[in-house]
């Protein structure tokens, strides 16, 4: 095995972990069902150190995994057994914040929410808002093209990234894109986003900022059936309104949220719908009437309109707590994020319900209804023999259903380790061969995050996990 001596010349001893106790906390990420022990964890504090680490890996042909806060739900930052983890949390400078051009240039370890915090005094914000935004990093968001609750209107991470300076797996340093929102030539910035760490490590990311909406109109609606909630979504979409968010929770998810945060949603609801319009006050004055009229014509049994910012937050509190809350219903759960065409949401939910009944595995549903992005939470008890495997098998059936309906394996979590076996269900052999060739153009030795995205022998075995420590602490959630 290669000696680690060379690494000691790059980072000092206190930022190079090699003993078992130190390595332990890096064995898993947000997908706790998988574990792998790295040989070392290096914590660079500068781009130059990061480049030197990658070049050392390239020279020695040692696999490396870049890691931010380790919140990936697809196992994207799962270590490679005996490889190196490059922890980027300390590369956390906001290098430039330019309010006039609406641009922030950040290092990969900057936490998502910190970008908005820094931009707020200038009347700006960073739009992509994955649920783990108070802890997840921009580097990880870029690698997995993270989403959030506002993707229908504002797009995913890639839509807000203008340029990337990166060190490729070969050690070469490249820059894609510029500060312009236009680009000439192929969009390599766009290709890098969502490449799941297989190309290299982003060192500087140029983000486009937006002014936050002036006003919101947030409505919580209770329905007696999931179907009725689904019909309301269709009516909204067909009306020509473009809501910033459109979320549905089913009865089991509501029950969990009530138990966790007493969100006081309409009692007895089989489903609640959260609709949020946003924009300049003049526009909203007209559109809110349109929405209220439209909702009144649906089969709602209770409709609540947030009259101020506090009420808006209280509506969102139940929704945002849903994932950690489900932890109270069950010792363990798996969450998927498959996508179906929006018009087939009702059918998809019915089929999930049937599968749940048939397998006697409880499934709670929370989803981004505007873009068809499901989040079935599959509940199980990891101490029960074979329970994890049965839950995984149900998850696989749900994913295959999404593909069969013309959707996608993943709306925002990425393929990672978790869904790599299903990639051939979505893409044919020629396309996967092309993906692999693209990877080789960036990383001919396959040392950058191997074992992710592509099916293969590199993926480690399932283990019974228990919740992520950060999840237990209520800091992160799985959506």
């Amino acid at each position, binding site marked *: 095995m290669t000696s680690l001596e060379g690494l000691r010349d790059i980072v000092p001893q206190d930022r190079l972990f090699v003993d078992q106790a130190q390595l332990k906390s890096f064995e898993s990420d947000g997908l706790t069902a998988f574990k792998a022990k790295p040989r070392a964890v290096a914590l660079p504090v500068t781009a130059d150190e990061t480049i030197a680490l990658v070049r050392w890996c390239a020279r020695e042909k040692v696999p490396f995994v870049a890691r931010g806060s380790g919140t990936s739900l697809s196992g994207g930052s799962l270590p490679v057994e005996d490889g190196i983890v490059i922890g980027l949390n300390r590369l956390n400078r906001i290098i430039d914040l*330019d309010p*006039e*051009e609406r*641009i922030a240039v950040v290092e990969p370890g900057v936490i998502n929410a910190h970008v908005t915090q820094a931009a707020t005094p200038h009347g700006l914000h960073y739009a992509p808002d994955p649920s783990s935004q108070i802890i997840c990093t921009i580097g990880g968001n870029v690698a*997995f*093209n993270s*989403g959030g609750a506002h*993707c*229908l209107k*504002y*797009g995913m991470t*890639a839509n807000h990234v203008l340029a990337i300076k990166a060190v490729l797996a070969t050690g070469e340093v*490249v820059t894609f894109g510029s*500060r*312009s*929102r*236009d*680009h*000439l*030539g*192929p*969009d*390599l910035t*766009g*290709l890098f*986003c*969502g490449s799941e760490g297989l190309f290299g490590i982003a060192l500087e990311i140029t983000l486009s900022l937006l*002014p936050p*909406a002036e006003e919101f109109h947030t409505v919580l609606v209770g329905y007696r059936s999931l179907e009725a909630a689904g019909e309301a979504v*269709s009516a909204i*979409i*067909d009306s*020509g309104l*473009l809501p910033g968010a459109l979320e549905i929770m089913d009865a089991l998810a509501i029950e969990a949220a009530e138990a966790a945060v007493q969100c006081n949603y309409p009692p007895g609801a089989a489903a609640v719908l959260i609709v949020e319009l946003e*924009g*300049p006050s*003049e*526009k909203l004055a*007209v*559109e809110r009437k349109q929405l209220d009229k439209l909702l009144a014509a649906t089969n709602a049994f209770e409709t609540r309109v947030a009259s101020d910012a506090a009420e808006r937050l209280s509506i969102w509190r139940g929704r945002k707590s849903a994932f950690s809350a489900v932890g109270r219903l069950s010792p363990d759960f798996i969450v998927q994020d498959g*996508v*179906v*065409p*929006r*018009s087939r949401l009702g059918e998809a939910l019915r089929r999930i319900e049937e599968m749940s009944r048939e397998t006697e595995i409880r499934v709670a549903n929370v989803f981004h209804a505007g873009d*068809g*992005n499901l989040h079935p939470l599959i509940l199980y008890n990891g101490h029960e023999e074979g329970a994890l495997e049965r839950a995984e098998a149900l998850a696989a059936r749900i994913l295959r259903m999404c593909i069969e309906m*013309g959707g*996608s394996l*993943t*709306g925002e979590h*990425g*393929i990672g380790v978790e869904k790599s076996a299903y990639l051939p269900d*979505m893409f044919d052999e020629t*396309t996967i061969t*092309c*993906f692999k060739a693209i990877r080789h*153009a*960036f990383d001919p030795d396959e040392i950058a995050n191997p074992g992710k*995205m592509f099916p293969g022998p590199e993926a480690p075995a399932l283990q019974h996990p228990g919740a992520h420590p950060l999840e237990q602490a209520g800091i992160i959630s799985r959506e």
Partner: protein
Amino acid sequence: MSDPTTESEVVEAVKSHDRLLPVGGGTKPRLSSVGENTHRLDMRKLTGITEYQSSEYTITAHAGTMISEIQETLGRQGQYLPFDPLWVDAGATLGGTVAANAAGPGRLRFGGLRDFVIGVRLVDGRGQVIRGGGKVVKNAAGFDLPKLMVGSLGRWGVMTEISCKVFPQPAAWSSREWVFSDHEAAMAKAMELSRSRFEPDATEYLPTEHRLVLRMGGPVESLDALNAAVGGAPGPDQNWWQQRKEFTWADSSAALIRVATSPRQVVPLLNGLAIDPATHVQVSAAGNTVWLNTTEVSKIDEILRSLNLTGLVHRGPGPDRWLGRKSDQKLDAALQAVFDPEHRFCVAA
């Protein structure tokens, strides 16, 4: 061989030509001009909308489909392509629009082609059919090939089918305008508006007149109040915006060059151009794109180089398509080996 009408005919055409370039409506002639011995693969018979359900906010069509047909179909359901595709009346196709990343003033609000292209089928240089992305608005599976196609100018393969995200169209539009004494003040206002609460969907600047024009969309009943609040004077009508997208303002015998800028780079560029009165300029999308219409291509090349900017000649004469700073990406060669190892797709330098 006749022009392809199906994807398998595209495969045949790729396999039977050593050098070829897919061409749509030819509305950006410098991007579709080829040397001798290179076949121009006319894509205009591979047409038709293959999937459109307005409730999905997506549309899928063959690459040779005219954008005008797509816009008419979307318009009937009150939807549109928010990025303002260019040269629509002149006959632009969907494939050409993606390959050239041809977005107009409306890109300011929700982004350009990269933000709306969600799926693609293409025939690569080996004659293989590759599919990237999907047909749903949210998708994080696999490498983002649709984005790689945006601006690719045909170098990775022949796109045969493209899926786009679409949005509901605002019920009405209104324009406002301001005239300034200098470029600095005008660009400062453009940047101020694009971070304002008004969410403008387009902000164009005409430097010769020092005139800044803004467009907003929304419910009819909201526009009077929005106009009063944003200030300025009443702006031009839809015809004016149409001219911006069709470039009827530009001299067609002179070169039309597109420069990607950041808003702050616009004033130095305009000052650099002041020495050349023969150049007509339009600053688009609040200073993120500058269009130059000029007979002095080599002068422009020098100016762009001195400012470290890149330009792409879309129409008109000139020795070289790329001006100013050239991109030097070893990766381009590596990716060409992936998609087109035999260098079939002729893309002039």
